[in-house]
């Protein structure tokens, strides 16, 4: 496959960026949940 490095870089950047944002949201949520009672999290 020609230009495999260029093509793969777009896929890798996209997936790494998405996973990093998802991880950040989950971690932030976990930390905030430790400081709040369940009634402040109505989705639980």
């Amino acid at each position, binding site marked *: 496959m020609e230009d495999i490095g260029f093509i793969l*870089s777009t896929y890798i950047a*996209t997936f790494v960026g*998405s996973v990093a944002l998802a991880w950040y949201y989950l971690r932030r949520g976990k930390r905030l949940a430790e400081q709040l009672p369940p009634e402040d999290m109505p989705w639980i």
Partner: protein
Amino acid sequence: MAVTQNRITNTTATDPLAERSVEPAKRRRGGATGTRFTFVLGAATIASMALLVLFGLFLSPADITQGESVRILYIHVGTVWVAYVAFGVTAIASALFLWKRTTSLTWDRIAGASAEVGVLFMALTLFAGSIWGRLSWGKFWVWDARVTTTAFLFITYVGYLAVRGLGGSHQQRGRRSAVVALLAVLEIPLVHFSVKLWRGLHQEASVAGTTKVQLENLMLFSLFLALIAFTLLYVWLVMHRQRVLAMQDALDDKGLDYALAARRAESSTAATTSATTTAATGGTV
């Protein structure tokens, strides 16, 4: 914080916060912001992304004119689609926040969460586009109308996020950022129609456009798979982010009360322990 280790229900009955518990939520599947729905949504997102990699990189054929670089377009089109949707949702949620009948900080948080995810996907669009430009035009960046207006849109929404970060109450934040969002969304038609207004290097839409481009079936399938996969990812990210913002707002509003209640609980426990020790030693300590 000390709040996490204390159960406020141990404090005196006269304390208005005494009946509230700040016991942290138990460990749950999908984290503190997850539900059964987001868990299923996340699983569907991962599955669709895996299929996208399979079809985008291996099963769909190379293009007659673009060659293998057409595989970048599955990422490029998918991410820009989500960015447009995200900025559109930001504008709608902002309008609902400003409308008196539906004023709720939930709309403001949805707007903020959507814009944040949109900025990420717009950055990825620009990155994938520049790589595709390097392979097709020989340069990572050209001052083409579509490319330039897209970069301008990206910068505008980075500015929107900066405005959200300014000080003030949550209502002030909501009103201020909603106005910016309603102005910023006007750029999207400019970006979309820039290829027609200023005929540059960037091609027109291959699907649902005016050009008569025939996409091979597997290419078309891969393209729609990308749209579905990125849309699922967008919904998952926005749901989690909106809940994180709700928790952050709650902590801003009530965090001090919780911390004070926890401190009282600590003092109460310490006093009880001290009294017990004194009684046990007969006051000789």
